């Protein structure tokens, strides 16, 4: 049972890192897209040239891959906890987060969902996943302290 739990923690952590990176790329995409839509802000970006020089296409591709592998890690992580123990409230958050990411990927395949919208959805998804982890961590700690 403990091994299931440690697998769960490891995979969830991995998923969180991947999804956090996807979120960062989403923000970069959003900044770049905003500049292109407003048609200003190109001057002076040379100071941070890699931000301005990275194309929307690259940002989008890498973000999508991170979302896919993050989603897979998350799914496996949840599977581990379901194999190992019964459902607790914190897994409710995790499930919701997982569902949001699932929706993103589904819409992406069906309609080419990207950019700003993906950013909003993944913000929500990420918040839910983090909430679940915090809940788990705090719950674990208090459980450890209590006799």
């Amino acid at each position: 049972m403990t091994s299931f739990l440690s697998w769960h923690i490891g995979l969830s952590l991995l998923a969180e890192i991947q999804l956090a990176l996807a979120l960062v790329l989403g923000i970069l995409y959003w900044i770049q897209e905003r500049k292109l839509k407003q048609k200003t802000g190109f001057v002076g970006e040379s100071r941070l040239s890699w931000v301005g020089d990275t194309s929307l296409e690259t940002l989008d591709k890498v973000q999508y891959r991170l979302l896919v592998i993050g989603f897979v890690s998350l799914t496996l992580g949840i599977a581990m906890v379901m194999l190992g123990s019964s459902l607790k409230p914190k897994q409710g958050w995790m499930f919701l987060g997982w569902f949001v990411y699932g929706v993103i990927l589904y819409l992406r395949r069906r309609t080419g969902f990207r950019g700003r919208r993906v950013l909003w959805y993944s913000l929500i998804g990420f918040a839910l996943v983090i909430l679940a982890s915090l809940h788990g961590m705090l719950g674990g700690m208090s459980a450890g302290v209590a006799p």
Partner: protein
Amino acid sequence: MSIVVVGMSHKTAPLSIREKICFSSDDLNSFQELRKIEGVEEGLILSTCNRVEICAVTKDSEQAKKNISNFMKDYHECGHLDFSSYLYCHEGKEAIHHTFRVASSLDSLVVGESQILGQVKEAYRTSHEAQALGPRLHRFFNRAFFVAKRVRTETAIGSQPISVGSVAVQLCQKIFKELANKNILLIGAGEMVETILEHLIQKKIHSFYIANRSEESVLQLEARFKHHDILVHYVPFQELDQWLFKMDVVLASTSSPQFILTRPLMEKAIGQRMQQPIFCIDISVPRNIDPGVHDIDNIYLYNIDDLQSIVQENIKHREQEALKAEQIVQEEVDKLYEKMRHRNTWQSARA
């Protein structure tokens, strides 16, 4: 021991004069002649389409300046002409300052362009081959290259494009990772198209689609860019809507008085291509693409005014950066001049 620079540039002489005295780098003889000029100990010829100048190390700068300007005329057999009003002569600190500015592209027609440094390096190589250089000019020009590099890295003088064509391509690159595998559609092929196409072709794009009323336009376009070996596919005007969703970049420049690409048309296209971005450039006046298209997600529409205002912004930015560059150059001139003065006093004391 002093450095002198004698020459003319786009600022002092018209092309009709400059072309008379330009030196070709294939003609090593002219470089070899340099050291034979009386008073010249080491020399270098810089000859580009915007300037012709000779840089030399001499003991007697007055004599050297006179002899160098005579050499320029005599070598090209135009001794009968009076060039004195076109020539500039710098010596000592001024000459160092001038050369550093030239190498850093502060004296160029388009300030900040990067070609000049390569041209100065080429001049340095050729003069070296012709054994016209000596230890002092070696040191001096290496210093100039160092200063030019410092200007490049410490200022953003050449970082932003300042022509409509290169701005358009830069925008493309902000959207697409690679342009070579993208589909590019030209709607009409007005005159302004050329400036942008040139830049696209430089980015290794060789295949274009053109939508026009007649198939002749394909041949015309191929003829206009015949030295570039491009491939043009024809899209009949009536079938435009069936092709639109395949296009990543759309460049419109017809003389049509109304919108050719309307909002519904583009909305349909972007849906068909699963929201993959489209970059539209409308350089026609009156406009051919409905400005409302820019409000559709994942479509970016720039018209000629947008491009030009980015160009203006970049020029302004470049001017500000040029001021910083001038400071760097001045700093380096002072440093080098001080060093040379020390060396000269030491040498004369030893003598």
